[in-house]
């Protein structure tokens, strides 16, 4: 036991050194031209400062701050969970911009590490680690909600001029950053005779080809951030199949579990910052003197704590359970919490908070109110998550 404490003390020291390192690096790099990206980006603000934020991703790559949790042999730092959380904390504290590489780093990278071939890892991971290659996610479809069981996009294998390849036909929605992305990771049905979760495959598809069209969706915010992506005879090499043909669901579920693991804690740091801003607004409008508002703010804070506790417990038990299912719990928790925060943000702002810019430019609170309406729809709607929990976690009959 004495030994345990001592190793705990050692790791605490290492964590502090790590914190110092990222803090110093951010102070030295998030400056100069990058001052303009401070506080930009993120959900509802994806359209801001795009070029500069791409440059910032490359800068992060130079500093080896991408994929820090990946193994050292894969180009990461092998950072512990605690250190990853520290990175997110310090990044948020410094006002680091919303990450364009989120999908690439948090979803595609871990998927390739877990399911990709050595060749795939060598071809795709370095671009991500350098902050260069931008990926988007091709999961959701218009007809199917966000349940992968309803995927209609099809892919069939054929012999092409340069060897075996897949041809992809179908439509994806909610595809964030698709208009910028170099590649898309797509779930498509390779065996049309199979139903639901069977017969799906996980394909990496280059975006820069005539078979791919991107149409931005004008959202209720008046801005665009999500896209529809149309695959019409889009082609990708058979080398870009991740996992075996027909194993796409298992691969994707692995990714989703990653998405909602460490990323959840990172996301919560953003939530904390948003809640702090709401409290600050409540102070400035005087709404904080209203006991009903105070109570709602305390409840929001408690809800955030409950989410953090849930995420920590989930990460700890990862491996011995069903992370894919617990991810549904997490998704429902944060989507509803975040949506409620959007209401609270507007409510504490009072009637002044409803005024926009002359050309409908939205305040942060307005953007939060409106944008969080998508949280409960995309990436597996509340309804889909409830079905998953009821049937797969609680075992209620279909």
């Amino acid at each position: 036991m004495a030994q345990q404490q001592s190793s705990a003390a050692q790791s605490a020291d290492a964590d502090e050194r790590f914190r110092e390192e990222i803090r110093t690096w951010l102070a030295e790099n998030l400056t100069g031209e990058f001052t303009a990206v401070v506080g930009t980006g993120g959900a509802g603000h994806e359209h801001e400062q795009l070029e500069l934020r791409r440059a910032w991703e490359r800068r992060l790559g130079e500093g080896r701050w991408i994929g820090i949790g990946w193994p050292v042999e894969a180009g990461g730092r092998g950072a512990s969970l605690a250190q990853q959380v520290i990175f997110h904390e310090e990044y948020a504290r410094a006002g680091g911009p919303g990450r364009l590489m989120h999908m690439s780093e948090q979803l595609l990278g871990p998927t390739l590490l877990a399911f990709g071939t050595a060749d795939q890892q060598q071809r795709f991971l370095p671009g991500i680690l350098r902050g260069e290659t931008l990926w988007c996610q091709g999961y959701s479809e218009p007809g199917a909600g966000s349940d992968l069981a309803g995927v209609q996009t099809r892919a069939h294998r054929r012999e092409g001029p340069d060897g075996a390849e897949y041809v992809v036909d179908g439509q994806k929605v909610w595809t964030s950053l698709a208009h910028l992305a170099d590649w898309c990771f797509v779930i498509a049905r390779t065996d049309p005779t199979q139903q639901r979760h069977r017969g799906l495959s996980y394909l990496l598809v280059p975006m820069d080809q005539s078979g791919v069209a991107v149409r931005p969706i004008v959202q209720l915010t008046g801005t665009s951030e999500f896209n529809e992506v149309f695959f019409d005879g889009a082609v990708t090499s058979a080398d870009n199949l991740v996992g075996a043909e027909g194993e796409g669901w298992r691969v994707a579920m692995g990714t989703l579990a990653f998405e909602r693991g460490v990323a959840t804690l990172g996301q919560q740091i953003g939530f904390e910052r948003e809640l702090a801003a709401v409290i600050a607004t409540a102070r400035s409008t005087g709404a904080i003197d209203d006991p009903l508002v105070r109570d709602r703010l305390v409840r929001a804070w408690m809800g955030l704590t409950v989410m953090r506790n849930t995420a920590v417990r989930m990460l700890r038990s990862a491996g011995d359970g069903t992370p894919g299912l617990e991810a549904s719990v997490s998704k429902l928790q944060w989507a509803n919490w975040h949506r409620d925060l959007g209401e609270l943000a507007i409510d504490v702002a009072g009637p002044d908070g409803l005024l926009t810019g002359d050309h409908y430019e939205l305040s942060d609170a307005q953007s939060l109110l409106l944008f969080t309406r998508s949280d409960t729809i995309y990436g597996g709607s509340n309804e889909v998550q409830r079905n998953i929990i009821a049937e797969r976690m609680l075992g209620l009959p279909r």
Partner: protein
Amino acid sequence: MTSTDERREMRSTVAELLDREAGSARIRTAMAGRSGFDAALWQRITGELGLGALLVPERAGGLGLDFADAAVVLTEFGRRLVPGPLPETLVGTAALAGCGTATADELLLRIANGGLALASAVAEPGSDWDIDRIGCRAVESGGRATLSGSKRFVAFGATADVLLVAARDPAEESSGLGLFAVTSSAAAERRSRMTLDATRRLADIDFDATEAVRLTEPGDGTRVVRLLVDLTLVALAVESAAAAAAALDLTVEYLKVRQQFGRPLGSFQALKHRCADLAVLVHGATATADHATEVAATGSAELAVAAPLAKAVCADVLRDVAAETIQLHGGIGFTFEHDAHLYFKRGKANQQFFGSGEQLRRHLERAVFQ
């Protein structure tokens, strides 16, 4: 007071016009335009249909109908979120009719003849709609009145022909209020404000010794200002209940048609039950808006309770229904081109406009804990 049949006919006349002339595309053009409403449509509804003069008493050449008749029209406009100064004009007319002064009657006559657009200037910076804290002041000298002070959140205030302004009246007992008219030719500084709910354009207005006409008798001004506020609350309740019903209709129709996994979405029981809960809310809101309308029509003192209650209830219901309208439509409900967000934004706006739910509930404590 009008018979049920006459009201039904009025409703269908208005509904037909709006179905033709105020579709979603027209509304979107109007809400993005300079004035925030469709001037041609306004001409038709005031000129051809004379809706602006609905509540002008017969003595002033109007139709002399009551607030329950006006509510029929407000319902049809509310269902469709038609932008424009009709609610403000109807409510303002009713308040004018309650003044009983020559100046007010003169204005009523002009409304009956000319289709004037009214706007209600009540809220002020820092005090919102709390009329006890109104700071805008009138000064009278030589029979002429002038106003000084600032007003906020004046719906369609930048384009209104006549502003009805609640201000401290020198002719009243200390801190008494009066209602004053400021015409568009007077030198007030008006700034149009875009808001989250683009279907109701607001204005900031500054008065600096601006020429005005006193509409209320000394000693009677506070009553009239309260009437103006309470009738606005009723109008907001009516339009909120109507919009909530429309948003629910939209949702139910979508769920009937939209297929998923080979079945209409509306056959999924979880969604059905949520729609049923919304229907219960809409029934309650409609009945409560109806009740407030009736109280307003009879001029009962109960209005002081029924109006804030109805507004608080109906605005919350519109928000709740519209939020579910977005969610139950899924991805399409999150797009700008779908109307779901217009209902949602109106719901959030109506929750704040003329007092938040918290404020109104605190106001009602007197009635509850008497």
